[in-house]
């Protein structure tokens, strides 16, 4: 395949810019391979986060030619190599260095959410009985590899910077996986409405489009959660019922 040029974001919070690197490319290579080759041969100190190189750990999130993607799952065959390939860090998070961003906010968000709280076990050996068809949709949510690309692309975070008021698509998926879990007993709807800011989501589905695990974030997680919030807090009959049952 010959040579290709990669335009890579280099620098830290004090200042950064694109730097062009030419490198050899060969059949089947993914963007992460090219970045690694550049790192090994031309830029030893370049910062890039990665682990599994098989789309399973969600570490190597970046923006490739402006598209939020995993570097390990983006094949060079699918890009035009006639022009430089642009590789930059996720823009919704503060830059640490080069392609690495500070995603610690996501970990803090999760810690604040109410944990899984199962009902008492169904059987004496401490286990539960669940039908496969009742857990299929939650297993979809649990495919999430926490790459945070959905957070990166969400305009509420990316453009409006509402990190203090809005938990983002990843954590709506997480909330859905708990709320719809057949043996969970906790109720998270009040937080979803208030501190988690689910109302900010105007279902543009950008998150669903970039999910490398193909989780239907908006349709299967966010919209059903919005419906539950509406049912609990805005249904006039239920509201009346609550007033009288106090």
């Amino acid at each position, binding site marked *: 395949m010959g040579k290709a040029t990669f335009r890579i974001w280099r620098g830290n919070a004090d200042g950064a810019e694109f730097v062009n690197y030419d490198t050899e490319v060969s059949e089947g290579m993914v963007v992460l391979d090219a970045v690694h080759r550049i790192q090994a041969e031309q830029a030893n100190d370049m910062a890039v986060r990665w682990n599994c190189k098989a789309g*399973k750990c969600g570490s190597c999130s970046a923006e490739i030619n402006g598209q939020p993607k995993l570097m390990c799952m983006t094949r060079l065959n699918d890009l035009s190599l006639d022009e430089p390939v642009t590789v930059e860090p996720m823009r919704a998070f503060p830059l640490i260095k080069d392609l690495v961003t500070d995603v610690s906010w996501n970990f803090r968000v999760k810690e604040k959410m109410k944990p899984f709280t199962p009902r008492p076990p169904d059987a004496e050996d401490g286990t539960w009985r669940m039908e496969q068809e009742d857990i299929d949709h939650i297993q979809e949510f649990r495919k999430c590899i926490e790459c945070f690309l959905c957070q990166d692309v969400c305009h509420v975070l990316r453009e409006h910077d509402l990190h203090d008021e809005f938990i983002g698509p990843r954590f709506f998926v997480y909330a859905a996986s708990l709320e719809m879990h057949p043996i969970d007993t906790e109720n998270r709807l009040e937080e979803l409405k208030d501190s988690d800011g689910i109302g900010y989501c105007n279902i543009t589905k950008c998150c669903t489009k970039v999910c490398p695990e193909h989780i239907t974030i908006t349709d299967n997680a966010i919209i059903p959660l919005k419906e539950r919030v509406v049912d609990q807090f805005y249904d006039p009959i239920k509201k009346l019922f609550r007033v009288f049952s106090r």
Partner: protein
Amino acid sequence: MASYETHDYDVLIIGAGGAGLRAAIEAAAGDLKVGLVCKSLLGKAHTVMAEGGVAAALANVDERDSWRVHFADTMRGGQYLSNARMAELHAKESPDRVRELEAWGALFDRTQEGGILQRNFGGHQYPRLAHVGDRTGLEMIRALQDHGIHQGIEVHMENTVVSLLKTGERVSGAFGYEREKGRFKVFSANAVVLATGGVGKAYKITSNSWEYTGDGHSLAYHAGAELIDMEFVQFHPTGMVWPPSVRGILVTEGVRGEGGILTNSEGKRFMFDDIPELYVNQTADSPEEGWRYTQGDREARRPPELLTRDHVARCIVREVQEGRGSPHGGVFLDIAWIKEKISNAPEHIRRKLPSMYHQFKELADIDITQEPMEVGPTTHYIMGGIRVDADSQMTAVPGLFAAGECAAGLHGANRLGGNSLSDLLVFGKRAGEYAAQFAEENEAVPLDTAEIDAIAAHTLKPFENPADDGSGEKMGPYDIQAQLQEKMQELVGIARSQESLTQALEEIQNLREQAENVHAIGNREYNSGWHTALDLDCLITISESIALAALERRASIGAHSRDDHPEKEEPGAGKYNTIVNKAPDGTMEIRRQPVDELRADLQEIIDEIG
């Protein structure tokens, strides 16, 4: 004096994969202060790569299963070199460890009755692997992570430990750096648990990530602990071979568990040609019987594709060497053929093996529901590791514990698929429990600050080493790592000999000298070159221990094959483990230790079941 921040803990856990997280949860169950250090972000550790399942004799699918059968399977798979007490504890306790995950939110695939579903895997007599499609490791690590973050554990993400600290004979903490700014951190602790995983990055073709540089093995070795059976490196039979950039990425054994078959360029199912004596009675006579086994027929015996990993890997190498390989130097793994047997095969395959389907579709343009995959062996796991007490997981160094892949004993000469996820749960819990107990029973010891200054200076040395030694050919950290990987692959791989191993030891020595003088460019801020330079010491130490142990074992057993000693046991040598430790003069020593005689009740199980 070096500048560093200090963190004080009762128990410090190094590594946050399955074993580390499970140990941290257990250690934090009382009111101890627990710190958890991980090299990557939380939840990204290698456990996420585990696909097929976690082995536990729940007997949900076949009520004939029990801890006794699981014990016997593990011992047979390990060629009877395993620590029998560990195999016993593992078989007895893994069902509870799996059930407990469900209480923490894990959602395994279900049986018709609504219990945890189990699947067939190589070397396991009954369907035993609890699983979630082919992403079981992700489910496990997420369940542990999401539970763990509410247990008051302090997590240090993207921190690497470069040395353990000792005060007298006891471990007293650890020294490391944080990746972001390269600042030093000193952790003081009453007890330390190593849970750092494996060593795959010592090889060129591996399913392991950059993190797998044998850190725990090396830290323990330098602190005075022993390493056992380091020659047993598992080459998983099925890694991807094409395109070159994905070479080594794992293809789960679950493909074969679901009916996938191995064929050569002549279209022949070559695994039927060579069935080891230990397994003749358990292996199918015909493809038809093998298929019935994978579909849950309890009277059928397993197809030869589900023999142990060491054997399958060797058969694949033989096919390739004898000219019957696939176009890119592997063999064919075919799951698409099951459309002859079931009507909705493509949908069935996508449901049972979703991540394999995507992996091949996206990385190799192959639709596994329609065409065969090309696969070949990849360095996957190390059975050898830090020698620990079977019950407590404590090493020879008081206060230092180890669990998971970096510890050893359970798997003997070969690990069965699915036994690593259960290993890390069972022994992660035990390590956390006993480390907590040790921390409570022993007073804290003061840190030795002089030692800390020396380690800090050594850690910064790559920046001070000259960039050029005048030869114009001085190797950088990545070059040294790549050369080590080439040499280990070539000389200490699946087929070994006295000649190749002696040469390997020389090459490793040469690379050690290069690594001591390696130069890192740039500054301390998230500098991958510097990190790679620092990891070299661990990689070189464990590479030497693997080559040395491989040279010592003059026989071919389990995952260790010597071209010059094809017989299973050295005449008159009996069964033994190899033990490596650091001699007082700083060199690496090796000795043999006979395997203990089995306890009578455990021997009875072996005699009865196999």
